[in-house]
């Protein structure tokens, strides 16, 4: 066991603290090239990450950058700076600490580059930007350690891929660099270790004591949950009771709109005037900071929130987490529960509130999975090439490079360990010429090879534009909301551009818990007035709905197979029994399709259990097939577990609908023109630098960007279908909005076992789908038939038939 400097151990003793075993282990491992620490929140994780740095600097406080700390949140960087300065000052260490994010002033940023602090706290985007400067080598000279906080969150998105490419660059500049990752509990620590370490270096994994098992229950109310919807308004009195019984409660929601609606209802029922706040990503930053500050002061009893509070500052006093709506993903649930009782060694307490009847089943499955610590996660696959393209451009900004050297550097980044030279060359060619179809356009010719064979920017002024567009976060295009005639005041928040476009003056909606009336759009700001209405037009902005994970769906199907309803409330057990009686319960290794007439139309219900996005895509593809085969579909609606399709004719033969080749064909030619594919293309094209969101003169609005991308997309599909960005788009479509990968997974699972049940009426399991929102109409032959039928009837009955 290595010995910490006495000044540090003395400080711990003076505080009455003991060094945790995992903190000591991190110090013992300080020389390892890569170390991953898995520890629950509140376990002194950050201190564990910084302990070796403090010890090394205590012994040898030479000037220059020693440790770089990267976190997914700007707020976290600022918070760590405050928290770290206290022990550093009290121990009396001569260490300079500073943070650098998008909010840092230009003067300070300049000073940091010229004379870096010992410890610099930053974000992946700010780090990528730092590596793009010509003087990067000087800035990072002497760098010893890099600490990546909340690496589990970064690993789930392209931000992680971007960060690992930046780390590869740093490792070239500072060969002795040691890497440390700090992670919450995850299902596959090895995957994160591979991401973090330089390929093929080994990575040490340290696991801290996870502490006592959490205390999770499902809310039991006298009132039955409704058949559909996500509001959970029925639970308001019970939730208020829980808030009263605890010190501070976090009330998590899956979407911002649901959080707004719930908060509004909670206020209407809050007769005792308990101080309750709201926090989500659409609210103005200052408003969010106000809520956070009130939390820290202990002024609030509850906060209604979304994923915006999944990460971040520790609040020790939170003693209850309520999850409204099924968690959809066990790992996220466990991490959210970790937000309660950040004190080590005290069990976290959580209550799940199903928003509707099917979510009762989902909640029970999630609860059992959480208790068994059976976490889910979808392996992300190899690093995406759009991010690679961006990093080739970033490398070019910092100076001329040799293609072979850059390839070896990038292939040493965990996510790109399997990168082939051919794939890299494709990306390089795209960065240099824009690809075959675009080589005639000057603006896409960005790199050229010098006489020495090294690549450099064709026009050095392009560096500014490239730097302005660094990053992989695709913030949905939002507009600020402001009170009319109050232009100096702080904005209330932001709403999606598409939601704003759907409003007409006089419409009311919720924002920040207030009902406001839409007055008009003025210079890219939504102007509103306060409105006293009790019921707003629904707040549909930010419908970022998660899909139920594969593991959770499987658990539900397993529960159906055992017919063990012991964990379910009576009303839900009866519902499932009734389904088993009149039809059948869906199974894991076959596909149940029900067909029944209802109200003059014919329905089929497909229980695919592939998650919302994949079921939505399946709905699009299947209705397209039905249209082609003359079945006149009228529309469909999808949930996480099923898609309900209605039309004029009954379907007798469903097997051809699930032919793998036909579905793939449908994805490739027909779905290619779909909005979701265009959205996917836009994201990748922006990351890869084909489209610039920011230019020195102006920021493009989302709508402008989407028009020009749609044109580009159509052009490339027509003239260059094998273009790199289109290939990336097809890969991306396996996940995310299109989620075709889970349709393939479903087909693998069911094989040729497809059962069509013809029934006389709506079945118990299909019934809630009739109440779902988000029905998608199908415009096709059915509409023509209905119109002709109605027209003939009208003309006959009115006696006008003879007139013409």
């Amino acid at each position, binding site marked *: 066991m290595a010995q910490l400097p006495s000044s540090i151990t003395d400080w711990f003793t003076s505080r009455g603290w003991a060094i945790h075993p995992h903190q000591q282990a991190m110090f013992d491992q300080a020389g390892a090239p890569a170390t991953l620490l898995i520890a629950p929140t509140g376990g002194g994780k950050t201190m564990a990450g910084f302990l070796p740095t403090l010890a090394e600097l205590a012994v040898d406080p030479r000037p220059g950058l020693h440790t770089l700390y990267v976190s997914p949140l700007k707020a976290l960087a600022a918070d760590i700076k405050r928290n770290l300065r206290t022990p550093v000052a009290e121990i009396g260490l001569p260490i300079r600490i500073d943070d650098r994010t998008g909010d840092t002033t230009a003067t300070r940023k300049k000073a940091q580059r010229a004379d870096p602090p010992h410890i610099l706290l930053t974000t992946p985007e700010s780090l990528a930007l730092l590596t793009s400067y010509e003087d990067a080598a000087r800035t990072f000279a002497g760098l010893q350690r890099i600490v990546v906080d909340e690496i589990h969150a970064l690993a789930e998105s392209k931000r992680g891929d971007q960060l690992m490419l930046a780390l590869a660059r740093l490792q070239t500049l500072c060969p002795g660099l040691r890497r440390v990752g700090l992670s919450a509990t995850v299902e596959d620590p090895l995957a994160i270790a591979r991401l973090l370490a330089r390929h093929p270096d080994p990575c040490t994994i340290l696991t801290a004591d996870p502490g006592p098992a959490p205390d999770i229950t499902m809310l039991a109310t006298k009132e039955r949950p409704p058949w559909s919807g996500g509001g959970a308004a029925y639970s308001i009195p019970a939730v208020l009771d829980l808030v009263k019984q605890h010190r501070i409660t976090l009330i998590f929601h899956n979407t911002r709109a649901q959080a707004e609606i719930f908060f509004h209802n909670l206020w209407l029922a809050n007769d005792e005037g308990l101080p309750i706040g709201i926090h989500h990503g659409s609210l103005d930053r200052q408003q969010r900071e106000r809520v956070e500050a009130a939390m820290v002061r202990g002024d609030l009893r509850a906060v209604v929130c979304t994923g915006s509070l999944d990460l971040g500052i520790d609040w020790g006093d939170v003693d209850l987490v309520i999850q409204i709506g099924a968690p959809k993903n066990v790992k996220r649930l466990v991490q959210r529960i970790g937000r309660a009782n950040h004190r080590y060694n005290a069990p976290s307490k959580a209550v799940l509130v199903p928003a509707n009847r099917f979510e009762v089943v989902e909640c029970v499955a999630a609860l059992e999975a959480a208790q068994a610590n059976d976490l889910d996660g979808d392996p992300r696959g190899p690093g995406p090439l759009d991010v690679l393209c961006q990093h080739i451009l970033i490398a070019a900004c910092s100076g001329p490079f040799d293609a072979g050297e850059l390839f070896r550097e990038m292939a040493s980044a965990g996510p790109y360990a399997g990168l082939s030279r051919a794939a890299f060359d494709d990306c390089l060619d795209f960065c240099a010429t824009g690809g075959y179809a675009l080589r005639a356009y000057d603006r896409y010719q960005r790199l050229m090879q010098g006489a020495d064979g090294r690549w450099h920017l064709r026009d050095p002024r392009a560096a500014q534009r490239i730097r302005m567009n660094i990053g992989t976060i695709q913030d949905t295009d939002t507009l600020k909301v402001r009170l009319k005639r109050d232009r100096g005041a702080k904005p209330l928040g932001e709403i999606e551009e598409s939601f704003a476009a759907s409003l007409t003056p006089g419409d009311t909606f919720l924002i920040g818990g207030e009902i406001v009336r839409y007055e008009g759009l003025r210079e890219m700001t939504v102007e509103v007035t306060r409105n006293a209405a009790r019921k707003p037009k629904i707040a549909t902005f930010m419908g970022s709905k998660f899909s139920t994970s594969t593991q959770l769906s499987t658990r539900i199907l397993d529960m159906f197979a055992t017919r063990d309803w012991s964990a379910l409330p009576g009303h839900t057990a009866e519902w499932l029994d009734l389904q088993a009686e009149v039809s059948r319960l869906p199974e894991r290794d076959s596909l149940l399709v029900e067909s029944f007439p209802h109200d003059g139309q014919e329905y089929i219900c497909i229980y695919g259990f592939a998650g919302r996005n994949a079921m939505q895509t399946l709905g699009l593809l299947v209705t397209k097939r039905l249209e082609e085969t003359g079945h006149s579909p009228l529309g469909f609606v999808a949930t996480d577990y099923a898609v309900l399709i209605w039309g004029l004719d009954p379907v007798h033969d469903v097997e051809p609908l699930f032919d793998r080749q036909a579905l793939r064909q449908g994805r490739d030619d027909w779905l290619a023109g779909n909005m979701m594919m265009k959205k996917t293309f836009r994201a990748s094209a922006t990351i890869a630098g084909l489209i610039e969101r920011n230019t020195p003169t102006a920021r493009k609005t989302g709508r402008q960007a989407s028009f020009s991308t749609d044109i580009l997309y159509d052009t490339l599909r027509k003239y260059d279908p094998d273009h790199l960005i289109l290939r990336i788009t097809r890969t991306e479509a396996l996940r995310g909005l299109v989620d075709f990968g889970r349709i393939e997974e479903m087909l693998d699972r069911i094989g040729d076992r497809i059962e069509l049940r013809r029934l006389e009426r709506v079945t118990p399991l299909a019934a809630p789908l009739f109440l779902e929102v988000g029905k998608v109409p199908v415009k096709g032959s059915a509409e*023509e038939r*209905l*119109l002709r039928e*109605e*027209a003939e009837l009208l*003309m006959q009955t009115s006696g006008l038939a003879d007139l013409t």
Partner: protein
Amino acid sequence: MTADPSIHAFTLAGAQLMAMGSGALWWPDQALLCVSDLHFGKSERMARRSGATLPPYETRDTLARLADDLERTSPRHVICLGDSFDDLAAAEALPEAERLWLSTLQAGRDWTWIEGNHDAGPIDLGGTHRAQVVLGPLTFRHIAEAGASGEISGHYHPKARVRTRGGSIRRPAFLVDRQRLILPAYGTYTGGLDTGSEPLSGLMQPGAIAILTGPRPAAVPMPRG
């Protein structure tokens, strides 16, 4: 041609006319094709006036549909029934490619631009410019006049709504009674006026019918609310 399901035949003032699913009117005896309210250059005008950006495809889209109808019917005479351009500046700002395309469509046939409220005044494009045209029993003008008979007009962009067991369907529609015919707007991106609203409900006599456009045009008693 009456067997063609994409065409609905009817009579006005003794003339045998055909409402095409695209929104064009075909008069076989005169080999005449009539379209109304093309609104070329709408996105260009919107961009100029308000800064809002509609995609610039609508002129090409409208031209493509018009080219299809011309190919199907091979008319000797084409009448554009007013509001062909969103305003006179839009007519001048028509991109070169679209101008050329339009001139190939005009080749070999009479082409009449009737003035509308949006494009009153001469336009620097081929064809003749008229306030109205009288042909046999029919009068072609942009805006319907009270008390007229055998009149064919546009202007109002009529749309009709039909409720079916599968939900309600609202589409651009031809409106016809014993005295007059009002054409739907042919241009892409044009709004519409419901048949139940004034002045349409007042202009059209009792017993008027609405012919909804689409792959199979459908005639219904004109909905009045």
